[in-house]
């Protein structure tokens, strides 16, 4: 079973409390939502990297040197 740790700062007492079914469901929903956001961020970063590589290849095909392409960054 999964527990949460509750620290009562007025007494210094720490208590382990079992998660309720609702809390477990919420955690699972939150984790799924986070994974979705993370995947979207990674896809966006990959798309940006792919576009950059494509642009650099096209510039090279036009005759620009690597130093000239690098100077554009």
């Amino acid at each position: 079973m999964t527990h949460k740790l509750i620290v009562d700062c007025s007494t210094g007492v720490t208590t382990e409390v079992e998660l309720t079914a609702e809390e477990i469901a919420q955690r699972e929903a939150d984790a799924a939502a986070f994974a979705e956001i993370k995947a979207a961020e990674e896809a966006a970063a990959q798309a940006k990297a792919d576009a950059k590589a494509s642009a650099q290849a096209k510039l090279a095909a036009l005759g620009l040197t690597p130093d000239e392409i690098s100077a554009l960054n």
Partner: protein
Amino acid sequence: MANTYKAIATVTVGSGGAASIDFQNIASTYTDISINLSARVDAANGVAQIYFNNSTASDKLWRRLYGDGSSAVSDNSNGTSSYVRPIGINRSDQTASTFGNMSIYIPNYASSSTYKSVSVDGVNENNATFAEAAFAAGLWQSNSAITRVTIIPSSGNFVQYSTATLYGIKNS
């Protein structure tokens, strides 16, 4: 550490792990509060999320700046969020038995007339590929005094031996 720091409470996660670390009933007698967290989660996607007063309202903002040895990144909450999300705990896909560090600082936390800002610096590491160093800024758009701070991994649980200490800080 300055003698104006007082350790209010410390918690260490036991063998069963913990879904969250929740500091409740924080007295309003300090100027600022700070939490030092040494933690690892048992999920590859786990990052810490900080909640105030058990509020799930979308009235928090955050921005992170971080580098991992090969790239530097800035991202943000893209609008309001129900939590502040810094970086600084080790994940299950990083170096085994290694814990990340995070220092959370909340000035003027007991004010009932100002929004609450939070700054977080954190590091985690993965010997195989990278280490992350990050700084995050957050804002809770509420005038409520903070009496409760909860740290919840976005995925998974805090593993055994993760620790958190809440400090109260006075300005004199």
